[in-house]
């Protein structure tokens, strides 16, 4: 198993970085300030074939390996975290179909997702079911050839702009969330579906985080993913892979902050010399860069495990997300410190990056949930796992 970037990976990075520097970074402050979904950048990414990297060529995708997808997210996040969520969530929403969908379901949805004509979202979290996924309440009741969905979802990234969603609902209340949850493909124009409200957030402000309501939403049974009761497993297997996208996003946000801090320190004069010439600043910059490099290499190592379908995949992706998220928070906080007062104002990008970094410690499993997953894997390896876990 090798995870060293090849010449092709380097070429992809160069191409995405040029696009991100020239087209995405100049929009980032405005996207943040107005809290507007960057439809223009979604179209740009679609036009450059950058939303189809996780789809097969037969569906119009480019079928890049996971390391390449990681580099893509990293380079976009270096310019703007909000925009990096467009490819991240396109994969997150599609993963349940990639993992459990039938050929017919893939043929039906993937071409429009790979081209970027349609966006997809992942509808799992509920107001009272965040980390505790199994306590989901939304119901799906079979009625002939259809399921009738009722309930609500909260904190659904792109929930208000997606054309289609993968949604998780309880089909067997007695069996509970772990055994009685099923997954469905729901098109956003289905009667009874609505996204009445989006959250006001600290960071990733241009990415709409929606509340979703389902009022007798009728979904054909052919839109069920896998068998009834497979929902919890599909959700967990999705998150085991998708959280690598958050690790990549965190590495990218941190890199953006490092680059901004280095540029500032090299330019700013205080006490008759460049700020960069003070050893105290050099040590901070060195810690920021080396720690983010460690996070990046762990993320790449985890990417290789995704492609190899490694049995201990959760150990790798959760470790990567945990380390990269915490590193991004620390690095962006230090970047603000390097810039001093200028770091605290919107004239420079690092305060936005610091606000954006925080979400990487929260979504797709909080850092506390990542630790639980890593610990569980450790105990399994040692042969002392708790029963039933």
């Amino acid at each position, binding site marked *: 198993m090798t995870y060293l970037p090849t010449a092709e990976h380097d070429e992809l990075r160069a*191409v995405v970085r040029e*696009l991100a520097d020239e087209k995405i970074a100049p929009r980032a402050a405005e996207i943040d300030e107005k809290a507007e979904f960057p439809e223009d950048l979604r179209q740009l990414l679609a036009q*450059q*074939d*950058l939303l*189809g*990297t996780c789809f097969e060529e037969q569906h119009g995708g*480019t079928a890049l390996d996971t390391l390449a997808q990681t580099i893509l997210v990293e380079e976009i996040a270096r310019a703007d975290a909000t925009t990096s969520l467009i490819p991240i969530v396109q994969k997150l929403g599609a993963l349940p179909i990639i993992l459990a969908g039938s050929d017919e379901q893939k043929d039906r949805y993937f071409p429009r997702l790979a081209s970027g004509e349609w966006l997809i979202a992942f509808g799992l979290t509920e107001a009272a079911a965040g980390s505790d996924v199994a306590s989901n309440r939304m119901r799906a009741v079979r009625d002939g050839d259809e399921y009738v969905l009722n309930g609500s979802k909260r904190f659904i990234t792109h929930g208000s702009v997606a054309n289609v969603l993968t949604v998780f609902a309880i089909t067997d209340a007695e069996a509970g969330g772990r055994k009685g949850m099923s997954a469905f493909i729901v098109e956003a124009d289905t009667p009874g579906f609505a996204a009445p409200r989006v959250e006001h957030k600290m960071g990733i402000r241009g990415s709409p985080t929606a509340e979703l309501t389902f009022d007798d939403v009728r979904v054909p049974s052919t839109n069920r993913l896998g068998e009834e009761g497979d929902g919890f497993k599909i959700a967990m297997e999705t998150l085991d892979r998708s959280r690598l996208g958050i690790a990549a996003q965190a590495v990218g946000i941190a890199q953006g902050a490092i680059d901004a801090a280095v540029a500032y320190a090299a330019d700013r004069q205080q006490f008759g010399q460049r700020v960069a010439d003070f050893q105290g600043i050099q040590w901070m910059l060195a810690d920021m860069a080396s720690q983010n490099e460690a996070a990046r290499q762990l993320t790449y190592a985890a990417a290789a495990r995704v492609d190899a379908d490694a049995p201990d995949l959760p150990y790798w992706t959760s470790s990567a997300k945990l380390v990269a998220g915490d590193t991004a928070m620390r690095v962006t906080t230090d970047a603000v410190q390097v810039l001093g007062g200028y770091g605290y104002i919107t004239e420079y990008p690092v305060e936005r990056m610091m606000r954006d970094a925080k979400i990487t410690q929260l979504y797709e499993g909080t850092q506390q949930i990542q630790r639980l997953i890593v610990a569980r894997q450790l105990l399994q390896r040692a042969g002392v796992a708790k029963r039933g876990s």
Partner: protein
Amino acid sequence: MKIVVCIKQVPATGADKRYTADLRLDRTGVEAIINPLDEYAIEQALRLADAGTADSVTYLCMGPDQASEALRRALAMGGDDAVLITDAALAGADEWTTAKVLAAALDKLAPDVALMGMASDDARGSLVPGAVAAMRDVPLLSYGSELALADGEARVRRLSATGFDWIAAPLPVVATVTDQVGEPRYASLKGIMAAKRKPLETWSLGDLELSADDLHGAALTTVTDTRAPEEKPPTERIENVPAPEAAAKIADWLEQRKLI
């Protein structure tokens, strides 16, 4: 209608220029890119291909082996195939030699339009397009902000002091375009992947039936010295002040220099 776009690989715009002992551009360790002004020629050619006016777009480049990277980048933006002319005898080629070699290659490729950028970012001689046209005895349509092809003729729209002119000539022609063509496209991911499979031929001088003797030792000119241009004093800017105050400051400035 067949278009050949001539492109040059140059050091990245912001890179420090270094010279070898014999005053040639030292390319080692310097990031190389497609001459930015040539990207407008590529964009113009691809727009004509998108519109169905051009049937094929070929890229032609003279340079060292590594210039094939520039051709792959161009192919990633679009177009059909590419030719790299590389030969040890071409090291240190000047404008005359470059024109001679490109003219021979264009004779072989026989395009309706040989399209070029208005200048190269490294040397900025702007002599090659005119020299190629003269050597091939075809019309030159230079500095176009747009190129149109119809009814056996090429037309370029060229900005003038009073507006713009349309200049026409019968095909085949050599044409150059400016940055007014429109923003060059980015290579898409599928474009990059497809470019790896597009034909890229390498020709030597022998393939063009030229010999080192025909080229007078690669250059008719000799570089005797290079130096950076003198730095101009920074532009003084009057900003964020009310108009009357700005006007008074301008008047003071002119008065101090006894210009009013």
